[in-house]
């Protein structure tokens, strides 16, 4: 939880305890706050995010991928896309950054207990849902059947192949992968991710569907799930917009009346359906 007496705009120093290169342009920073008080007070939920500050360059919102059981060391998986992430990619173990957070409302893990789970991601892999998969992996018996669906444009875009292999070994778990374009030796489905939906195993009356990725993909998933009588309130989407302050002041992440940084980033479909169909919102 964030101490309301602290200035919400000012980061705290954190040290990189480990840096893992996941793929050529994807890396994980495991960080620890240097101030023992800040470190001890830190609590987060799957789907929440931190603002990471690179000295002299700026801040960026990055979701937390590690398990909330250990709030002392916090993992952030980052893709190199801009000025800040390119700089963060150059840091090594022992380097310092600024961190403030956690912010936002994450995935509905408590509400999803004993339910079947469908996780759908698209595009180039999605850190926000990795936190959910990790969370369920740690507490496998608390949830029903687990379906993990990932769609990529090209088979070479699939990251974390070995993680999918690991997840496939979990009890009562289905991992479905699809690439629009498959190269030689791609063992999984070639075609759209939607064509895999028939293989999903879930009870439409007792399921949480969690998704993250391009809006077009999420719309297709929502349509399919609604056709299969899943309630709108059981469809959860992680939304992304420009974020600068993360405390609901700067206005960039507004999505209708929502501030994604504090009312989201995870929304149930019924809360955003009216905006979801409109381009440019």
């Amino acid at each position, binding site marked *: 939880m964030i101490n*309301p007496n602290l200035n919400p705009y000012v980061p705290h120093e954190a040290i990189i305890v480990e840096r893992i290169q996941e793929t050529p342009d994807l890396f994980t920073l495991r960080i620890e706050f240097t101030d023992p008080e800040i470190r001890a007070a830190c609590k987060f939920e799957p789907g929440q995010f931190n603002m990471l500050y690179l*000295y002299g360059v*700026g801040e960026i919102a990055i979701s937390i991928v590690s398990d909330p059981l250990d709030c002392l060391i916090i993992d952030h998986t980052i893709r190199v896309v801009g000025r800040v992430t390119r700089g963060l990619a150059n840091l090594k173990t022992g380097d310092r950054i600024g961190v403030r957070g956690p912010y936002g409302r994450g995935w509905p893990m408590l509400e999803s207990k004993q339910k079947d789970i469908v996780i759908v991601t698209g595009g180039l892999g999605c850190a926000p849902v990795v936190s959910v998969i990790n969370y369920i992996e740690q507490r496998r018996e608390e949830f029903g059947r687990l379906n993990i669906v990932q769609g990529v444009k090209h088979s070479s875009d699939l990251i974390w192949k070995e993680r999918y292999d690991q997840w496939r070994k979990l009890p009562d778990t289905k991992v479905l992968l699809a690439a629009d374009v498959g190269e030689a030796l791609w063992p999984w489905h070639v075609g759209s991710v939607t064509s895999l939906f028939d293989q999903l195993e879930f009870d439409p009356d007792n399921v949480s569907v969690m998704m993250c990725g391009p809006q077009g993909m999420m719309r297709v998933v929502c349509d399919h799930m609604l056709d299969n009588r899943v309630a709108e309130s059981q469809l959860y989407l992680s939304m992304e917009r420009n974020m600068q*302050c993360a*405390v609901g002041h700067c206005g*960039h992440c507004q999505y209708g009346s929502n501030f994604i940084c504090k009312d989201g980033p995870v929304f149930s479909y019924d809360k955003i359906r009216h905006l979801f169909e*409109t381009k440019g919102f």
Partner: protein
Amino acid sequence: MKSERYFFQTSQLQNLLDKLQDAGYTCVGPQVRDDAIIYDEINSVEQFPRGINDQQQPGSYSLNSNQSTKFFSWANGPQAIKPLLFTAKEKLWQSKQSTDGQITFKTCDPDPKPIAIIGARACDIAAMKIQDQHFLQQQFVDPYYKARRGNLLIIAVNCSHPADTCFCHSTGDGPFVDDGADIVLTELENGFLCEAQTSQGEKILHGLLLEDCKNEQLEESERIKSNASKQKRKLPEFDIKSRLFNELNNDAWHAIASECLSCGNCTSVCPTCFCHGENDVPELDGKSSAHFREWDSCFGQGHSYIHGITIRSQTSQRYRQWLVHKFSTWHEQYGRSGCVGCGRCITWCPVAIDVTESVAQFVDRRCD
């Protein structure tokens, strides 16, 4: 609290400035600069725009001398309270990196200088109350805004000469101040009706030479209010909130966008717009870096940028974002519309887009 109303002679106005300064306030008031009425530090009543009237039309603003001896016979200028509380640019914090790589952060505390603003209008106070909600009454409190807000004393002057672009009467925010000020003045022919709305205001007011107000003076004030309520522009009377939200795909957005330059003037002068960006500016010696925030506009290309995508790449989408937020989704956020009817976005729009007309075109013609 509402106290008694009193009257003071015009000659007491300088005394008011002096009393405020004696109480430790820096006075900020209206004055003419660059052919507009702006608010800045003021020491003498000579600096007030006495005998000046503003002519405001879509896309135009000019000042004229009139024969009046009044100090406040004009409507407004491009800014009033907003930049005093939510500053256009400010340093939030500073970071330092030592040679061994440690980073320390230092919060920049805003200068807690007490300011008394004289001549704020009802629309400005309504807008400030909205910004109070945004910066002070949500999950996170903005400490910079809070420090300034706690040090602001407001001496409002009821509006007697609304401009052609004003429509505060139809938003319910003016022309007279209901609450939210410390002192409210109404300028009459020979002086001012005055009323304290807070104990701080009362303290200041009782340092002046006050007279009991007469019935004729109260009647004169009522006449001013009644005349100032007759405004040329107004918002249409249909359910704007629902109507705009149901017309997100209307072609009208493209028609407006064909005029709109996406310049952001409207958001700069709007007293309720709160968007701001953050950026880091490293010192040239590389030993420290300053973190600033600065007003931003939803009309800018970068406002909706995220990892290679601009969500609102079209002007029509940006205008729609602004108008739908201001008049529709604002209600869900803050329980009212984000428009206080000050008309600034109309006056200062370089291509004379009139927000009341923009809204009015979404009238449901099927119901006619």
